């Protein structure tokens, strides 16, 4: 009698019932499943973007951008700290070339004090005793601040965390889409948006750093000089594509009246008189006061609204703007005004992001792929089932039941882990079916062989299962090795394939060996056959 104790039958059956129960919700539409009573499993297999349609974007940060920002910030810090020292430390010849900040301390007696101050504002990184900047003195009076690699790494890391948040707020401001936004490696962010119809718009939204500045227009600038790109001292020339004066640039003061950091809200709205789309913004207390004071002092003069160093409009200050509210108008459409509002609301990106990889699949193509994939999968499975039935009879039926259970188990496990089914994943299914079939073929051929050698029915089956096991085990382990490497090195859809394959290897060994063995054992116990037809 083929050994298969009663308790084991119960365990195997329980496992199968649970696994299959978890597969069931994936066959129903999401809305319907949501209404099911809570004691039923409701987890579903996700469809990958290549099946459901959508966009996959890989964004990469400009690392040199972060480094430059740190240098500029450090220069500012040096100036303020030396000024705040008591008594004030006179410095000169501050330079930021070569990726370092260096400056001269005029009074040689104060060099040590300056070094002390600068050392105290550097931050320790990790536990290794390293700091984010190295402070050195050269030529007795020049202090050199060199950014360390680990300091840069930490800065990049925190910039990326902020960037991820900002990206999230821009892509999904209402939190209603099922987006995936995760950091990848040290300087990348992966964005996956299902069912998106406008990837271009999304990319534009992500690419903008959205730095908003309000600056007074420099009316004294000489038009001839401006045409050559030169501005008076204290001013700068910025592009102004929609300038009503006809020239695509304008001179503004370098110093900002107010910056976007002081914004607390931005909403798309409509102008009360012209009914044009506008963006309404609100400043925080300090920003609002400052805005009020500057507009009070400059009534009648124009100021420029600058987004990412491009002037979008330059209205006149008709009256002081009190109360911390303002309206940005330009040649907006409702959409572009809404985009700008989102960008301003989500804050500025701490680092410039570039799209280094994009994969967008239209929803129609995805639906086509699913349909064809399912047809091919069903036809392939039916062919294999028929083949097994014709070749191995009763044992083929057992193998086939195991095969169907295997497919359901894979779906169930994928649903439990909330895994994603991609197009290559469907191919992974086919492969798993192949592996499961192979296991049963090995077993059944072995049983035939043993029977041919004149063993009794039970002994043939016993030996068939036992001798086949090592080959099945070794073959599947090697597939697990391939699957793990595929998962580790693969990206996107290929990973989906690896996931299905690895889950499939486990379930196919379970169903093809354990479950069929249970069937055979139950059959032997009930019928006690006298002839073996295999």
């Amino acid at each position, binding site marked *: 009698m083929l050994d298969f104790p009663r308790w084991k039958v119960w365990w195997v059956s329980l496992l199968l019932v649970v696994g299959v129960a978890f597969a069931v919700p994936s066959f129903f539409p999401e809305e319907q499943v949501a209404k099911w009573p809570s004691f039923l499993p409701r987890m579903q297999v996700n469809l990958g973007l*290549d099946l459901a349609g959508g966009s996959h974007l890989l964004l990469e940060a400009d690392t040199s951008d972060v480094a430059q920002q740190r240098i500029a910030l450090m220069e500012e810090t040096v100036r303020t700290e030396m000024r705040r020292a008591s008594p004030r430390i006179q410095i000169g010849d501050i330079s930021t070339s070569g990726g370092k900040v260096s400056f001269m301390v005029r009074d040689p007696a104060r060099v040590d004090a300056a070094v002390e101050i600068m050392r105290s504002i550097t931050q320790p990184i990790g536990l290794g005793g390293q700091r984010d900047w190295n402070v050195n003195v050269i030529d007795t009076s020049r202090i050199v601040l060199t950014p360390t690699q680990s300091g840069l790494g930490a800065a990049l890391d925190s910039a990326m965390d902020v960037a991820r948040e900002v990206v999230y707020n821009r892509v999904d401001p209402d939190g209603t889409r099922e987006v995936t936004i995760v950091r990848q490696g040290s300087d990348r962010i992966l964005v996956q948006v299902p069912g998106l119809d406008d*990837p*271009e718009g999304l*990319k*534009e939204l992500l*690419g903008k750093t959205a730095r908003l500045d309000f600056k007074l227009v420099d009316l004294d600038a000489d038009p001839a000089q401006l045409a050559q790109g030169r501005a008076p001292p204290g001013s700068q020339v910025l592009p102004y594509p929609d300038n009503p004066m006809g020239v695509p640039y304008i001179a503004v003061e370098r110093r900002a009246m107010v910056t976007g950091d002081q914004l607390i809200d931005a909403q798309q709205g409509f102008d009360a008189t012209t009914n044009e789309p506008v963006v309404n913004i609100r400043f925080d207390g300090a920003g609002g006061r400052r805005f009020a004071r500057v507009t009070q002092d400059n009534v009648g003069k124009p100021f420029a609204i600058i987004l990412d160093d491009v002037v979008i409009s330059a209205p006149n200050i008709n009256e002081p703007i009190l109360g911390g509210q303002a309206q940005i108008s330009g040649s907006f459409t409702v959409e572009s005004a809404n985009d700008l509002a989102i960008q301003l609301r989500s804050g500025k990106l701490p680092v410039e992001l*570039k*799209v*280094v*990889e*994009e994969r967008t*699949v*239209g929803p*129609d*193509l995805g639906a086509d*792929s699913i349909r*064809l*994939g399912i047809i*091919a*999968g069903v*036809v*392939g*499975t039916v*062919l*294999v089932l028929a083949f*097994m039935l*014709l*070749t191995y*009879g009763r044992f083929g039926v057992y193998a086939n039941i195991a095969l169907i259970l295997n497919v359901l188990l894979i779906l169930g496990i994928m649903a439990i882990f909330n895994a994603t089914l991609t*197009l*290559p994943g*469907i*191919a992974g299914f*086919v*492969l798993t*079916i*192949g592996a499961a*079939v*192979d296991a049963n*073929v*090995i077993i059944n*051929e072995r049983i*035939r062989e043993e029977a*041919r050698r004149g063993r009794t029915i039970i002994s043939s089956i016993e030996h068939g299962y*036992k001798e086949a096991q090592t*080959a099945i085990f*070794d*073959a599947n382990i*090697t*597939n697990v090795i*391939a699957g793990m*490497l*595929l998962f580790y*090195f*693969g*990206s996107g*859809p*290929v990973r989906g*394939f*690896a996931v299905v394959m690895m889950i499939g290897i486990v379930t196919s060994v379970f169903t093809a060996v354990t479950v069929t063995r249970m069937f055979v054992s139950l059959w032997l116990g009930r019928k006690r056959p006298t002839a073996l037809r295999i």
Partner: protein
Amino acid sequence: MRLLKLVPDNTNIDFLRWRGIAITFSVMMIVASVALVAVKGLNFGVDFAGGQMLRVSFAQPVSLDELRDDVGGIGLGEPSIQEFGSPSEVSIRLPLPEGGEEGANAAASRVRDMLEAEYPGSRIDAVETVSGKVSDELVRDGALALLLAMIGIAIYIWIRFEWQFGVGSLFSLFHDVTITLGFFALTQMEFDLNVIAALLTLIGYSLNDTIVIYDRVRENLRKYRKMDITSLLNLSMNETLARTIATNLAMLLALGSLMFLGPDVIQSFTTALLISVVIGTYSTIYIAAPWLVWLKVNSDSFIPKTAAPGGAERVASHNEGY
């Protein structure tokens, strides 16, 4: 109902008789494949070459030449245009546009504008853009995954069997992968990430065959200690022949339906797998097995040394008891 029997009982085919011819043929194939890859190169998709790929479906069949002229006329570089499944579905591949992201966006929208103007009713189904940096990484990771998978599997076999088996399987994997690459170079089918997945599957799959036969060889080595290795290998292969044929037939049925009925997107993937089924079976018989003859495997490898002086336990002795 009579059951189907693909292989008669007790076959006695002298497989290894042709091993000299087979290995010559295989070496020629490997050399030809390497040459093909070197001369013609692989037709890298955007995943590995970088660039932009658009998949467009048209309202009616289009002339590829006209479309090529139209897309080429935009001035984004020489497009590579291929039919994709049906005459009204086309993939357009463009080199990586200059100017990074803005360039890529601009390129896609220029193609879109042109299509809207010249081919009303057309629809862009999918866009893939991969920058040079990312594509270099994908090439590196893909190659690394392949290499590590081959080595990892060979080591596993060495541990489970004997070193000769490891060498045999490694060489047979090398053989399969090289010839598949040669096939892709010859047909200039698009070589993308999915094909790497297929190659890794090939490695696992071709190994399935090898392991089933090696397992039988191991068993027979223990059983028939006096038999010479060539006869023993022939015996093992005849004994497992029914399984080899049944499994591969089942795989061909499954892959065939995927190939003919499945979505075009995974065509290159299924093609690679189909080839692997054929090559994998061949290489097991004519590459993996003959190595065992050349490397002089014998029964001693699998007979546990009982308490040898020095206590050096053989790796293979772990396998006892199955």
